């Protein structure tokens, strides 16, 4: 294919994309001359160039479309629904020919006669036109046509049609009379177009990828230069300069790869239009945050999930007009696409004000399909249940339509989004609507990762999946890691966490050190809803890593999503938590089964409070986490007494210390002892609570018992145990040293 044809293809594609956007807009503003002009120009350009390149079939089709558009432009026709449908068909026809040219370098043989005759039928009947033409000839100008042109009313979008354009089969008269407004605004517009064309440049994506690679290389070299020259003061300035330039360069290259989400949002009006017509829905599409930018490759990757989500919203979300009316809603549904940047992520939302998702239906279906046990389902919050629709094979659609409902929808959305390191979430209110939220990292090429060690090698673990780290020293390993047959488990806050030993996974045949012979670090990972602990021998620093793809032969191993070069020039494979979970057989159901037995009893209440679980003298008590300012470990000698009352001189302020557990008393006589004080906020003062251990943070629900409405304390269900909540308000009122029984625990015991 020669350069000219390639350029023609790119330009035509862009023109048709523009045309598509304009067509859907035109449906709302059928009189908008600016839009019609834009569409006309797209088709006209194609026709003009094809004539030159000798693509006859394309030319004939474009010609037929141009005739119709010409009439629209002259105001002889108004863009009604059949006409727009016809033009959309024209668009599809042109696109398919362009595709053929791209693939085979010739326009192929196809029958466009049907489409052409459809376009002709839409035009003003020949007779009428002839008459009008005759009239125009007599008048020698297109004056009779002019009043219909809304151009003067649209100064913002004038029709900048260049004068020599010849609306086909039209008398020369028509083209020769541009409206005065147009003539005025023309130079302005063309100047603006000129500068835009001069200041931008098309760049091949592979070149950009190459640049990104080289920049990654440069970053690495810089790191090494910095390390090598750190001792030499003469090099400091130079290397710092190198450092800055490299960082700037990296940022610029990354910026060059960014594209506005409008590139994919602009495809949606057409989809919405076609689907809503096919499904008999009335839908208004709103788009927000079109200029939010995202890495090109990520944009490509979310195109399908987004289309899927939009289809779903139309098919299952927004109801038919009569149903909506019956429900007291506007007959026209709203579909909202929103994009916004939040930190290093871009949020993309698809919202519809349709029927929403019935949580009950999901619960039933999930249990029916065996995706979740009944007890587990009963325990889960609505929000959690909603996320079940992302499981493979889940569909609540009563009927399978050709739009969606085959149960291969949402899990594909999730897989695609997670493949690029994103997250997807759904939120729905029955009868009110549904929001699908995708969280996409800004760029794929550079991700934050934790470097872990295993088998004397470094591996990169993406931070996105990492929720926490647990260290188990060798001497504790035997006790901390429990086994059910050959399945290692760890009790993480009372819940059994399946463990995967990285060395055993990667080298099944080799000999491995026992957990008790080495340090163990458990990286608690959450991948595709599978939660497990990955056991590694060591941790190194977190690093921003540049992701390099693996060759096809290594991709098939499946456990690695890429490789990277670390700051010390060592190569590290990037672990893929999702595949590791799959390979190790960590399934969602297995974990569910465990948690049913284990049971995490948050009262299920919405807005459950979080508590800090502490232990004082063998009893557990809870402190509302929101009130905790910090936890201090200090020597007992820091505690002073005012009378019987222990106080702490803290940052020059006196802090009353509550010692209902007798922690201070127990440590007395040993001034070297370390005690722990939880510093809390109470009204407008601070108080300290002496405890022996801080155990955990857990969610609990407030359970006030009848009869103990007195605000001296409360109880909460924490980890299956009724636990007393320390009443911070009571700290000051009670004289120190006396009448300070552990009220909370007492209540707790009574309740229990």
């Amino acid at each position, binding site marked *: 294919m020669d*350069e000219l044809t390639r350029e023609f293809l790119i330009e035509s594609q862009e023109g048709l994309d523009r045309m598509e956007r304009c067509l859907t807009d035109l449906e709302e503003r059928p009189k908008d001359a600016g839009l019609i002009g834009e569409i006309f120009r797209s088709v006209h350009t194609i026709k003009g160039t094809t004539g030159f390149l000798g693509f006859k079939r394309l030319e004939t089709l474009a010609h037929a479309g141009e005739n119709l558009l010409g009439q629209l432009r002259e105001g002889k026709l108004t863009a009604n629904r059949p006409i727009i449908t016809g033009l959309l068909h024209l668009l599809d026809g042109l696109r398919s020919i362009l595709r053929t040219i791209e693939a085979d370098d010739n326009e192929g043989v196809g029958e466009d006669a049907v489409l052409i005759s459809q376009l002709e039928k839409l035009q003003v009947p020949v007779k009428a036109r002839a008459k009008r033409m005759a009239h125009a000839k007599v008048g020698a100008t297109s004056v009779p046509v002019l009043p219909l042109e809304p151009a003067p009313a649209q100064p913002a979008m004038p029709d900048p049609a260049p004068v020599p354009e010849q609306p086909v089969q039209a008398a020369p008269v028509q083209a020769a009379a541009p409206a005065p407004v147009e003539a005025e605004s023309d130079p302005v517009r063309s100047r603006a177009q000129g500068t835009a064309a001069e200041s931008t440049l098309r760049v091949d994506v592979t070149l950009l990828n190459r640049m990104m*690679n080289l920049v*990654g290389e440069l970053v690495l070299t810089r790191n090494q230069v910095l390390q090598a020259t750190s001792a030499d003061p003469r090099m400091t300035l130079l290397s710092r300069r190198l450092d800055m330039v490299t960082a700037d360069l990296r940022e610029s290259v990354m910026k060059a790869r960014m594209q506005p989400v409008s590139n994919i949002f602009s495809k949606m009006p057409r989809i919405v239009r076609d689907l809503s017509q096919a499904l008999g829905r009335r839908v208004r599409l709103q788009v927000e945050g079109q200029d939010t930018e995202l890495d090109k490759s990520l944009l490509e990757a979310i195109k399908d999930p987004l289309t899927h989500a939009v289809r779903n919203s139309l098919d299952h979300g927004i109801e038919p007009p009569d149903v909506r009316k019956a429900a007291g809603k506007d007959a026209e549904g709203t579909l909202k696409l929103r994009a916004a940047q939040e930190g290093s992520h871009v949020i993309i939302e698809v919202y519809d004000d349709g029927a929403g998702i019935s949580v009950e239906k999901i619960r039933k279906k999930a249990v029916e399909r065996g995706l979740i046990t009944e007890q587990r389902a009963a325990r889960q919050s609505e929000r959690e249940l909603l996320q079940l629709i992302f499981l493979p094979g889940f569909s609540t659609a009563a009927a399978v339509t050709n739009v969606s409902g085959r149960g291969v929808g949402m899990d594909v959305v999730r897989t695609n989004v997670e493949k690029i390191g994103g997250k997807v979430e759904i939120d729905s209110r029955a009868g009110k609507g549904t929001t699908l939220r995708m969280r996409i990292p800004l760029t794929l090429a550079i991700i934050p990762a934790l470097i872990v060690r295993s088998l004397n090698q470094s591996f990169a673990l993406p931070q996105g999946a990492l929720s926490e780290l647990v260290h188990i020293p060798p001497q504790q390993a035997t006790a901390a890691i429990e086994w059910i047959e050959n399945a290692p488990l760890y009790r993480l806050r009372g819940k059994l966490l399946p463990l995967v030993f990285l060395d055993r996974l990667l080298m099944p045949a080799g000999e491995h050190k026992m957990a008790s012979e080495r340090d163990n670090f458990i990286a608690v990972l959450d991948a595709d809803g599978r939660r497990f602990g990955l056991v590694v021998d060591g941790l190194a620093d977190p690093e921003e890593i540049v992701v*390099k793809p693996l*060759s096809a032969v*290594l991709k098939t191993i499946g456990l690695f999503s890429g490789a990277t070069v670390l700051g010390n020039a060592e*190569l590290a*494979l990037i672990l893929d938590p999702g595949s590791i979970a799959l390979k190790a057989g960590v399934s969602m159901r297995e974990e569910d089964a465990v948690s049913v037995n284990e049971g995490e009893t948050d009262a299920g209440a919405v807005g459950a409070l979080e508590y800090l679980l502490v232990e004082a003298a063998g009893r557990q008590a809870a402190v509302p986490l929101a009130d905790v300012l910090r936890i201090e470990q200090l020597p007992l000698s820091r505690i002073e007494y005012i009378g019987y009352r222990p106080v702490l001189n803290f940052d020059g302020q006196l802090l009353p210390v509550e010692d209902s557990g007798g922690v201070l008393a127990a440590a007395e006589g040993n001034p070297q002892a370390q005690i722990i004080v939880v510093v809390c906020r109470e009204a407008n003062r601070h108080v300290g609570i002496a405890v022996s251990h801080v155990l955990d943070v857990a969610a609990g629900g407030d359970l006030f018992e009848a009869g103990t409405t007195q605000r001296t304390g409360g109880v909460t269900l924490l980890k299956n145990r009724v636990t007393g909540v320390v009443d911070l308000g009571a700290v000051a009122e009670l004289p120190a040293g006396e009448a300070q029984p552990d009220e909370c625990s007492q209540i707790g015991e009574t309740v229990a």
Partner: protein
Amino acid sequence: MSTAATGLRVKEKAPVAALVEMCSVRLGQTLFGVPITHILEIVGSARPQPVPLAPAFVGGLVHYRGDVLTTVSLRQLLGMPPKDGSQDILVLESAGGIFGLLVDSVGEVLTASTTDHEPNPSILDERHRALFAGAYKLKDSLLVMLDPEQLDPMRLSAARAA
């Protein structure tokens, strides 16, 4: 214009006897040759990072010009014991992309006449026959030609699967 260029291109036919340039490579006691047309670069004394669970012929990964390059261990392919210490890498280009070939050491570039070339001997076993492209009779030894296309990791893994 490119169409014109294609039109002007003349099909060249290799003469019957020609000189072939190849890079000599040593592995243990044997001399191997790789046609220089396939070699992009030679990377000296590299220590590839092993890849757990990878097929045995994969020698590991090396960092090459901003990319991560998969290497093929010639020793492993020929059933020789692994060598301690660093090895040299030939960066090769094949239809499937670029990859590295791990060898003990890279020698000089030799020129040989195609008249000295002989096909693989019939007694060569199947496994080696696929990798070798005949041999050149040098003055004092034989130089076994390697076929870079056959060494491509994708092809090797397909061959193993078959």
